[in-house]
């Protein structure tokens, strides 16, 4: 163990202490924050380019940039960010000067279109990393959505990303299951990011500033998942003025307030943001209950609260405290003498401190806590069933970003966490299962971005992780290469090895039963390799083309054994089955983000497969690969927004997917004579090739129209009317094969959203 630790340190320490190549003593530097002019919010991953030189960078996830090793002189620096007007500044640097230069960009929504599309846009370098994408609040709220704007559903429009059904917002990215995606809110892992039992995600669009998606081959600063990362950042709050708003919707209503506090108008001490959301389904449920319809809950509700306060202690120090809490409640009586109640939710808290050491080192210290708890209870015929399912994660992260020269940016950090997963079941008042798993993990990473010239960017990283459950050490190398053939065309390649110490058991139907498990003795962590190749190009007039191919392996996958009827008294390792998987595909994205007509066309050709014991066994008894039910061969999405006038906006999304894989039973027999059987009907047993059939193709069109304007001169309003599933496509969710009274089997289909669903919402911002 000690030799391995020494190995990691031997790699890390020299890298962190690595000094810059010798530079002229009179070299100058430029650094600062890039912010939105209207709110003062920092802009993450904004581009900063020094015209006429090879130097350029992007702001980090705190909106901070550094341009080191500039010769004394006057430069033209271009700051740009999607949705904001490009800003060009003349900056003069004296010999040895380290200039702090904070910049504010003006949102394009207050500009006319002619100003938005500028000739300069074609000169912008593409700084986006392979396999990444970024969403802003407008992307989430302006496209049609089922009942409520949703971050995850917006992400699922992107190539390589899908959801299981109209009723599930869990993300399946590049052939990975939801547990293979790390979901973080302000750096805090969220373990069950769903409301409404999976119908949509927990993230309130009013509270969100930025969503970053790493679909694959993600950098060394992240770890612990085989596939991808969704990193969500809450707003820090408006630093200019106190603003607020509320929205009324069919499913939920939202309200938020944000603003500056302390200090002066020009330089507030900090800012805050509070956003709340609560379901407003009670009238609908009451109306449904009055019709004596079956299966209507006695009560159902959810709420969530996001809050964040930021304090600018000194020019080089900033602290923030972020909180999220959300809960879902359901009470339902499926039939007489039975009752089912469930209460589940997440709470997260994150405290951040960022500090600038001189003009070359940006540091972040973060303490986070995350808790998930679900307590389903059922009572049937006088027998009770209960479950307590909990996750606790307390983490400490420290990251340093060091820019020693114009060619190198070094990042490094430490991450440690205390994890606890607990699961307790009772049956008829007696405890039948009680398991608490605890583990400590510690990770260290180092990553260097090397830009020898304006055409090549090489990023290499190594992440080492220790997981105490089972005493596992794992090392994950990461490498990516970008080649700018022109300023508008970029070729990219990336490789990475990834390890995952956790696995999620989910029914895909009802996320309140989702349960996490972890590696331990006899349960080795999963691991996999990812390779990706990509081409990105600016085609002019704000149009971008991205083509990426990817391939993934997934080894040592562990899942709760579906063939194990009862876990009582079973050793932890024996509760699992072990298998492997692979995924590969091609993604194409054509996008226009600026102008009166914006949107994107995305297409994915992909395949994902799994192999586990006792599934599709061959003649020699070995299992064969099969597609999990979320495998899609073809996926096509067209999302468009058209600004008719300053007041009216049209939007639409169309989605086409190959049908889900499912199992079509081909043969069957009945057992009639067992000691536990009554008759007259026997128990059916199906013989089939697992998931060898496909549901009919899925397609759906959603359309929307929005009007914005002034609400009696006191606020801005937006009235949205949308129709989901506009042409009433009856997409199949899954097939059931119930036995009819005459003993025959009938295939019945359970539809996804089968009819057009209107959605009306009204929002005020003041």
């Amino acid at each position, binding site marked *: 163990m000690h030799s391995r630790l020494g190995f990691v340190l031997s790699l890390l320490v020299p890298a962190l202490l690595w000094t810059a190549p010798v530079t002229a003593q009179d070299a100058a530097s430029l650094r600062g924050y890039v912010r939105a002019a209207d709110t003062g919010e920092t802009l993450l991953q904004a581009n900063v380019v020094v015209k006429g030189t090879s130097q350029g960078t992007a702001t980090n996830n705190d909106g901070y940039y550094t341009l080191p090793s500039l010769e004394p002189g006057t430069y033209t620096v271009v700051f740009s960010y999607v949705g904001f007007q490009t800003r060009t500044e003349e900056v003069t640097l004296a010999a040895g000067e380290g200039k702090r230069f904070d910049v504010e960009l003006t949102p394009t929504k207050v500009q006319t279109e002619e100003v938005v599309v500028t000739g300069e846009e074609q000169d912008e370098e593409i700084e986006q990393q392979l396999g990444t994408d970024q969403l802003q609040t407008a992307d989430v709220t302006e496209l049609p959505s089922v009942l409520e704007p949703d971050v995850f559903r917006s992400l699922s429009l992107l190539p390589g990303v899908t959801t299981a059904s109209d009723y599930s917002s869990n993300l399946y990215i590049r052939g990975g299951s939801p547990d293979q995606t790390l979901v973080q809110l302000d750096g805090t892992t969220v373990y069950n990011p769903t409301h409404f039992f999976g119908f949509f995600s927990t993230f309130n669009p009013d509270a969100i500033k930025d969503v970053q998606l790493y679909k694959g081959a993600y950098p060394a600063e992240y770890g612990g998942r085989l596939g991808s990362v969704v990193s969500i950042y809450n707003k820090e709050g408006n630093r200019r003025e106190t603003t607020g708003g509320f929205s009324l919707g069919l499913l939920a209503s939202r309200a938020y307030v944000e603003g500056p506090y302390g200090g002066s108008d020009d330089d507030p001490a900090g800012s805050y943001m509070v956003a709340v959301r609560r379901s407003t389904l009670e009238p609908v449920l009451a109306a449904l209950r009055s019709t004596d319809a079956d299966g209507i809950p006695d009560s159902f509700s959810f709420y969530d609260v996001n809050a964040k306060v930021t304090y600018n202690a000194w020019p080089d120090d900033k602290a923030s405290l972020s909180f999220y809490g959300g809960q879902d409640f359901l009470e339902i009586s499926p039939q007489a003498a039975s009752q089912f109640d469930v209460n589940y939710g997440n709470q997260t808290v994150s405290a951040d401190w960022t500090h600038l050491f001189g003009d070359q080192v940006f540091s972040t210290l973060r303490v986070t806590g995350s808790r998930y708890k679900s307590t389903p209870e059922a009572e049937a015929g006088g027998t009770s069933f209960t479950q307590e399912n909990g996750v606790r994660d307390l983490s400490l992260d420290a990251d340093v970003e060091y820019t020693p020269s114009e060619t190198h940016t070094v990042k490094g950090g430490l991450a440690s966490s205390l994890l606890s997963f607990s699961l307790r079941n009772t049956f008829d008042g007696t405890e039948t299962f009680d398991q608490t798993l605890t583990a400590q993990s510690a990770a260290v990473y180092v990553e260097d971005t090397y830009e020898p010239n304006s055409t090549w960017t090489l990023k290499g990283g190594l992440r080492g992780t220790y997981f105490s459950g089972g005493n596992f050490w794992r090392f994950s190398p990461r490498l990516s290469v970008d080649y700018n053939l022109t300023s508008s065309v970029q070729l990219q390649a990336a490789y990475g090895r990834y390890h995952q110490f956790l696995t999620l058991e989910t029914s*895909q139907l009802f996320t309140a039963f989702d349960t996490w498990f972890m590696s331990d003795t006899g349960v080795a962590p999963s691991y996999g390799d990812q390779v990706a190749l990509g081409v990105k190009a600016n085609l002019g007039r704000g149009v971008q083309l991205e083509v990426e191919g990817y391939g993934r392996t997934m080894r040592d996958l562990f899942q709760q054994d579906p063939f194990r009827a009862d876990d009582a008294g079973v050793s932890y390792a024996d509760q699992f089955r072990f298998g492997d998987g692979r995924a590969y595909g091609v993604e194409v994205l054509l996008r226009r983000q600026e102008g009166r007509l914006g949107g994107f066309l995305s297409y994915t050709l992909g395949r994902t497969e799994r192999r586990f014991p006792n599934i599709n066994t061959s003649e020699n008894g070995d299992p064969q690969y099969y597609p999990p039910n979320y495998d899609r061969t073809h996926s096509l999405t067209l999302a468009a927004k058209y600004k008719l006038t300053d007041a009216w906006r049209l939007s639409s999304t169309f989605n086409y997917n190959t049908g889900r894989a499912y*199992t079509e039973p081909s*043969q069957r027999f009945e057992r009639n004579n067992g000691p536990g059987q009554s008759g007259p*009907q026997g128990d059916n047993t199906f013989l089939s090739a697992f998931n060898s059939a496909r549901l009919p193709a899925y397609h759906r069109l959603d359309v929307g129209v929005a009007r914005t304007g002034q609400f009696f001169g006191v606020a801005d309003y937006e009235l949205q009317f949308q129709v989901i599933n506009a042409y009433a496509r009856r997409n199949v969710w899954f097939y059931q094969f119930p036995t009819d009274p005459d003993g025959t089997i009938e295939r019945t289909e359970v539809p996804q959203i089968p009819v057009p669903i209107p959605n009306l919402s009204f929002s005020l911002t003041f």
Partner: protein
Amino acid sequence: MTCDRLSAVSPVSSFSFLMYSFRLPILCVLLPAAVLAGCDTTATPPEDSQVVVESYQKANAPLDTVWLSRTVGAREAITPEEGAVENADVEIKNLDNGNTTPYTETSTAGVYVPQASSPPTVTPQTSYQLQVETTDGQPVTSMTTVPDAFTLENVENTTTVFQNTTKQPSFVIDPPRAESQQYEPARQNVYFFTVKVPSGTALDASELTPFYRASYDADEDSLSSFRINSSGLLNQANFSSSGDQVRVDLPWIGVAFFGTNEVGINLVDDNYYDFLRSEAAQGSVPPGEFPNVIEHVEGGTGIFASYVQKKDTIQVQCVEKFLGGDSTCP
């Protein structure tokens, strides 16, 4: 090419340039498409009908009946007469002493019983092999090892009031030691429980307990389907133990009828265990997915299993006020 030069060309021509210049990388990223189109690893569905074996050998009871039939298309009706495998040669061999018991077909097609009027008794911890040869010469075989026997030491609260939480019927058993069993791979004892209204007792819907009364639809359900209530598989570790003995409290959800009920405690062999646990998975994994059952029949499918059963009779009396809702006693 510089930034200025590219910005001077039209979007269309820059796209053409892109396509021309990056044939190799585009080929690289499109290569997986060719792989996707040319590689299909999906398993082939079983289309041919197979011989189905069904037989459950109870320890310390005579060798039991063997039922032979054929699988049908998943949505075809099962007709016992048409699906029966007739005129097959059937025998069960005791692998410990080598004795073979020939079977003969009864007047019901596909139903085979031992030829001897007093067939051998199934012995615990003994292996038996079923051997079938159909008229077309197809051999079908399966082997079971009978679990070790156990004793029912005591039964408490044999007469009790429904939903009395302090006086549930309680069964104390002395289970076989796990090391004496021949499970492969090694595992703990696994049971399922049956609660049965004795054969010959007329069933009356008014005597259904509240949960089952709410489930019962006279137009669609047969009351006889409630005669035997069976639990899923339960590991021995579920039950409280005292020394070598294990106590099992009967959960009220298991009782479908007031009155006399026979409670059976069934200890299963590997074949029964594998079949029931995988059969349960056909209904519990995400909807629309049916993993095949784990069966141990060569040349066909189905179940040739053994078990040890202990049972006793209890009396369940009705009360006027039930947990989870009001009801009325018959």
